[in-house]
């Protein structure tokens, strides 16, 4: 595929923005975890898989991209400390490089998939993916790239094992990717591919997972891997942060004492929904796969112990689904969703100064950061935005995008700010 001049301009602009932000910013806590593991490997030879805080595939990817940095350092390249950040400037850039390149990959796949520059631009220049890959330094793009690529392969090759392999890789970078893998398995079952595709997909998927996890098992980290990642993700363990309903729980202040396996229920319902619609064959299978992966993204965000970066999953999936169904409104609202999610995350959850200078004790924007009820305000606004995104995804009346939605969204924030922060309605209701 040849990239046209406008697409090249967008690509270069997006890369310029990312490279402009990456060395000077970072989430000090998360970056500290990653940089410790990499430095331990290259300075002491320690393979830090037992206590690595997330999936081992992230560790392998970071090892690959950190190696050139180490070589440059050995050749005498200097690096510099910027304020209180836990990684040095060029080091931070190399740690974020896999995610930035995956952003580029998603841009290219969206371009090929939709054959339009607008949807790809709405993702690549969306502040939320920029925030996550270049500022925060988290790795959701690394999961989304093989996921979107898998959806593309599924659509262009009418299913097949290659797309399933992509979904497995996606799941090995962040467990959400396994939802599409489960849907692809359902698809093979519905099409009765019991002799060729299905066994290959299941056995191949399990084999890849086993190969990736074997070093963790070898280094004695398998129990902690299950405890910290798998059980917590599917809701069978409270992990370290306690069990709650995620955004809905924050809004309604539901704090159950026991475990809540909401995600297995969400995955099963998603598979049932996909299978039902697919068997009726009113829409193309590839469109249904995008649609039900998007539905799973909504469910994960709303009903589980979700994290703010999970909101980014909805952006490329929403844009893709909007592009396939002619929902221009969904594509533009997904962009607005990203802008507001960025604003809410950096002001209400992390603090502007935390990711800018690496220190959470200094509030730069006092009126919108260090405010009472900030988490409640975040949960109310984010839940509202997700509900609106749901409306743009599935309502027949919301196919186009009116510019009045932008001031409406701002008004929603101002109203929520007034009632929650100034009036303190959360305190009266006992939810904040």
């Amino acid at each position: 595929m040849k990239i046209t001049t406008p697409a090249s301009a967008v690509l270069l602009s997006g890369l310029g923005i990312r490279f402009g932000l990456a060395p000077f910013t970072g989430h000090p806590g998360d970056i500290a975890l990653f940089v410790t593991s990499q430095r331990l490997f290259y300075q002491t030879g320690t393979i830090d898989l037992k206590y690595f805080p997330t999936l081992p595939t992230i560790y392998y990817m970071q090892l690959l991209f950190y190696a050139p940095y180490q070589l440059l350092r050995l050749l005498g390249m200097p690096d510099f400390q910027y304020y209180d950040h836990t990684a040095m400037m060029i080091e931070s850039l190399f740690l974020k490089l896999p995610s930035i390149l995956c952003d580029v990959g998603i841009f290219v796949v969206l371009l090929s998939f939709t054959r339009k520059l607008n949807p790809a631009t709405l993702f690549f220049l969306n502040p939320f993916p920029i925030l996550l890959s270049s500022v925060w330094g988290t790795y959701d793009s690394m999961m989304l790239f093989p996921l979107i690529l898998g959806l593309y392969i599924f659509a262009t090759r009418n299913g097949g094992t290659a797309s399933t392999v992509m979904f497995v890789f996606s799941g090995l970078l962040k467990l959400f990717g396994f939802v599409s893998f489960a849907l692809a398995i359902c698809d093979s079952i519905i099409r009765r591919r019991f002799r060729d595709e299905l066994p290959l997909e299941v056995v191949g998927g399990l084999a890849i997972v086993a190969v990736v996890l074997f070093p963790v098992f070898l280094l004695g980290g398998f129990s902690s891997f299950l405890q910290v990642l798998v059980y917590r993700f599917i809701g069978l363990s409270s992990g370290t942060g306690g069990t709650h309903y995620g955004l809905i729980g924050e809004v309604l202040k539901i704090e159950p004492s026991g475990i809540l396996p909401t995600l297995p229920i969400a995955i099963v319902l998603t598979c049932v929904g996909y299978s039902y619609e697919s068997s009726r064959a009113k829409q193309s299978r590839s469109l249904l796969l995008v649609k039900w992966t998007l539905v799973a993204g909504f469910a994960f965000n709303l009903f589980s112990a979700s994290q703010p970066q999970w909101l980014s999953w909805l952006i490329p999936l929403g844009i893709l689904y909007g592009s396939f169904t002619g929902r221009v409104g969904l594509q533009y609202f997904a962009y607005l969703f990203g802008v507001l999610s960025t604003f809410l995350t950096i002001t209400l959850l992390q603090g502007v100064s935390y990711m800018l200078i690496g220190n959470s004790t200094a509030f730069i924007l006092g009126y919108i950061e260090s405010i009472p009820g900030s988490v409640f305000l975040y949960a109310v606004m984010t839940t509202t935005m997700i509900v609106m995104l749901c409306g743009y995804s599935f309502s027949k009346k919301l196919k186009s995008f009116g510019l009045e939605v932008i001031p409406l969204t701002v008004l929603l924030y101002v109203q929520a700010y007034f009632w929650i922060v100034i009036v303190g309605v959360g305190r009266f209701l006992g939810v904040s």
Partner: protein
Amino acid sequence: MLVIAVVIMASMVVVLRGKNQQTTVLNVSNLNSLESANYIRLNNTIWQDPLTDTSQWHVGYSQPNMTARVTANGAIHLNATIASEPYPQAINLYRSVNLPLTQNPILIISLDASVGIHYGIRIAGQDSSGLPFQSWSESSYLQHRSGLGKIENLTVSALVEAYKVNGIFSAAGSRINSLLFYIESTPGQAGQFVLDVDGLRVVAPNQYRFNAASQVQETMDEITLTLNYTGVLGFADSQFAQGYIDYYVKGTLDLDYTVYFMHGLTVVGQGFEYSARSLTYNIATFSASKITSYPPLLVDNNTFLIVLSPLRGSFLSFRLGGLSVRYLSQAPSTTAPTEIDPSAILAYYLIFLFVTPVAIVILVSRLLSNENYHAS
């Protein structure tokens, strides 16, 4: 092309492993970093008040017109009538004791205060030269507590409380000589309130060594793991980044505990709260940003310790899996930064994160409305 790039980078990973000089990271890990493992039992009573005699107990009032009655029958009952006044009022119940700090006295107290009233415990003593010292502060968890109307069990280390207020000082020759309970009312509060001291004894902690790699099955009031790390490479406590410890643990039904990482008497890191009603595998993380409290018992100092300390209940079984304590040249900061001018960096942030991307999107959307991208 992509495959070649991956092969080159993978080769670099293999070749460069462990090649760089160790300057910016330190990892104290594995069982051979462990000097000793001990558990503590509070089973050695060195003093006990039978609470059958009020003659050792005295009552003090913040206002002269207040009244209270003290009785004893295996528990000390303070029954106070408080009239409404526009200022706070307090009634003290105190006695003298003689507890050498070198014995590391731990007070095991059971008490019950009426709902609606506030209460607290204050400990005082004198050092080897006869100078008095306080072992309580206004911010302590032992002050201004809300009465629950039911029995509460408190474990208070006199040594820890003294250190918290006075910093490190020599315990030799110092002793605790006063123990005081109080109830206090807020302005305008009136009524009859009760403070019952149902149990009061002092124990000296007994420390037992065990093999951390093997399962130990005992009633344990604290578990301490002493590291043989001696500060190599010059990393300071402020550079502590993150710690992990994984283990199999079982406790009493009411066990809630947390993990501390200590350097001498300083808490360097703390973990979340955990429970372990049945035998459970757990991996606990601890960091400086989670520090909210101080371990209630102290048995060792001038060493690096990982302490598993119950908030309630006791451990019944423990086996260590592994541990890792990590330092970075620049750890996540918990202190206020030096003065900065936020306007320039904020402008940079907003321009890169919001203004430029949104402007380009608006431009592209206007230029390419109704576009079709043709792949060739």
